[in-house]
């Protein structure tokens, strides 16, 4: 019991993206993500298996199509199955986080309208939950990587850098989508289509070199996700025939648009979220 009551008057800031102090923000973020993760993965009998089965099935189907039907994968890429699986698992993280985040703020309507709650926690907790999931899936991927005879190298240490960039991009997109959905309900449908497009605009099914055309490669490198995924392939699978992101983009200058899009997404997310956050409770 605190008998010494704090007697200093402080101005109340009102609702916001962060409101309520940094420690509380982080505590809430962590608790929400952990409880949600537990709920999903310990709530059902098969729990975690379900979240693994989905990317694995997608992997199985695509592997069959691209090695047996089109022969594209097996001929051009040394470790096609590993590249495909790694790409699918990483993209699943991006897609799951963003699509879950779209409706996250609105589905927490009760909490948002009736409690003082740092709004940004909601989309970020969604992303964090998916990140836990990604962590577990990457363990499975590691098994595949080793089983397919890819030897560990020092460049693996750079993989977390790529993950961090992917995490920031995912968080930015998720935050922006979650708050836009409050005002514009068609964001959900639009995003489903855009996410599907992004899947094909990222070198997951095919290597960058599949175009055999440097202009198209450079176009592909406009997509920040493509840059991340290509660099992951270089760092983790270290295939001699895979160009680095810089090579694919035709020089460092070629990466500037992707970097600009990445930064633009972050700035837009911060701007739109902090602009809309104080009004969420009124707009719902």
């Amino acid at each position: 019991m605190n008998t010494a009551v704090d007697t200093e008057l402080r101005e109340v800031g009102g609702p916001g993206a962060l409101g309520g102090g940094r420690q509380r923000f982080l505590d809430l973020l962590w608790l929400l993500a952990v409880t949600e993760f537990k709920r999903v993965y310990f709530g059902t009998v098969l729990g975690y298996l379900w979240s693994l089965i989905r990317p694995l099935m997608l992997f199985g189907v695509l592997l069959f199509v691209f090695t047996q039907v089109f022969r594209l994968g097996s001929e051009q890429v040394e470790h096609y199955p590993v590249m495909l699986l790694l790409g699918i698992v990483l993209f699943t993280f991006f897609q799951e986080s963003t699509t879950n985040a779209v409706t996250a703020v609105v589905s927490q309507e009760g909490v948002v309208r009736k409690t003082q709650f740092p709004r940004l926690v909601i989309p970020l907790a969604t992303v964090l939950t998916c990140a836990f999931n990604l962590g577990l899936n990457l363990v499975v991927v590691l098994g595949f990587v080793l089983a397919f005879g890819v030897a560990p190298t020092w460049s693996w240490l750079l993989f977390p850098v790529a993950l961090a960039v992917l995490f920031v991009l995912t968080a930015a997109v998720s935050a922006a989508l979650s708050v836009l959905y409050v005002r514009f309900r068609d964001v959900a449908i639009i995003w489903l289509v855009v996410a599907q497009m992004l899947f094909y605009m990222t070198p997951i099914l095919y290597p960058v070199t599949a175009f055999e055309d440097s202009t198209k490669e450079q176009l592909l490198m406009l997509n920040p996700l493509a840059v991340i995924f290509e660099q992951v392939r270089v760092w983790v699978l270290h295939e001699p025939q895979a160009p680095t992101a810089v090579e694919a983009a035709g020089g460092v200058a070629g990466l500037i648009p992707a970097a600009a899009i990445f930064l633009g997404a972050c700035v837009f997310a911060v701007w739109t979220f902090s602009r809309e956050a104080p009004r969420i409770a009124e707009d719902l």
Partner: protein
Amino acid sequence: MGASFPRVSAAIQVEDLYKSFRIPTHRVDSLKERVIRPFAARDHRELKALDGISFEIEQGEFFGIVGRNGSGKSTLLKLLASIYRIDSGTIRMAGRMAPFIELGVGFNTDLSARENVVLNGVMMGLTPREARNRLDAVVEFAELGEFVDLKLKNYSSGMLVRLAFSLLLEVDADILLIDEVLAVGDAAFQQKCVDAFHEMKSAGKTIILVTHEMGSVESFCHRAMLIEGGRIAVIGAPDEVSREYLRLNFEAPGPGAGADVTGTRTDATVRLLDTSLVDAEGHRANAAEHGGKLRIRTRIEALRDFAGLEISYLIANAEGIAVSQWRFGVGGDPPPPVKAGERLEIVTAAENLLAPGHYLVHLGINVKVEGGMALEMPGAIDFVVFGVANHHALVALPQETVTTPYEGE
């Protein structure tokens, strides 16, 4: 009570608070629409919810906020709780506040009580460690020890309310913001709430209670404030504020028939001055003991000369089931004539056979010979019956049992 409260330092300071809502005449809620018609007229009506409110609440004060629906009371509450953004003005606060706009609103029914208590504790400003340490105390007070790992979706509503309320007590904030919690739960739980409020009050917590029940304002609050039309109508002693609130609520809306927000309908025959449950000394009450007397007092003023005044009280329980109806002519049978301007006080008493619970009284006043309702007010009185009657029926009829040896075939 208000005058005797010692001046300490302020716990909450509100200065010149303004808040208005923009209600778009045509709401653009899809990107498609925004893209197709980017410059579509963004007309909106401006709804002023709060129009310049300033007040101060002292530390350790129990402060009541009352007001009719749409008065701006809920908006003020949400501004204090940092849910809505302030248009202009400032709110300053000393210490940590725990807002309870609604009991248990932050609960996730897919999680266990344990997880919910920790999550909500952190939401209200505890650290995760503190929240975990207080879990036992919360569960114990709520009498839910064995259900701590049960998911909340399997809880009964009574269990949920108990959990939420004991969490509120254990969060141990400096300032508590409470909205209408007294209206939930059964009579036994309401009694527990009342005890807890007295305890908090004597522990010197600053408490803001937002309610419709004038009884709780008068019995708990040091000071109260009435909000009407986004401004402070009265601020001061609770009895003064509650009188003003009732005057606002019961006043005839003007000549001719009409309905106000509370659903009162009246023609220009009588004016209702006051109607309430009263105790033996004639003080307003909001609860009556089972087995005691149930007294309802109504004060009216005649607006014209007429004869045959009749009053009816329909008492309904929380489920909306009419339990009892009292209907009688005022002043005898047939009711004698009344003159314009004459004021009457009518007290009706009956043995309280009602089971413990929450009741509403619908008031009707009519003129017998003319037929038709002169005044009708659904939910005019709101009261609780408390007591130890251990049954779940609607009424407890007094009974006598005679047992004799039976010697027949």
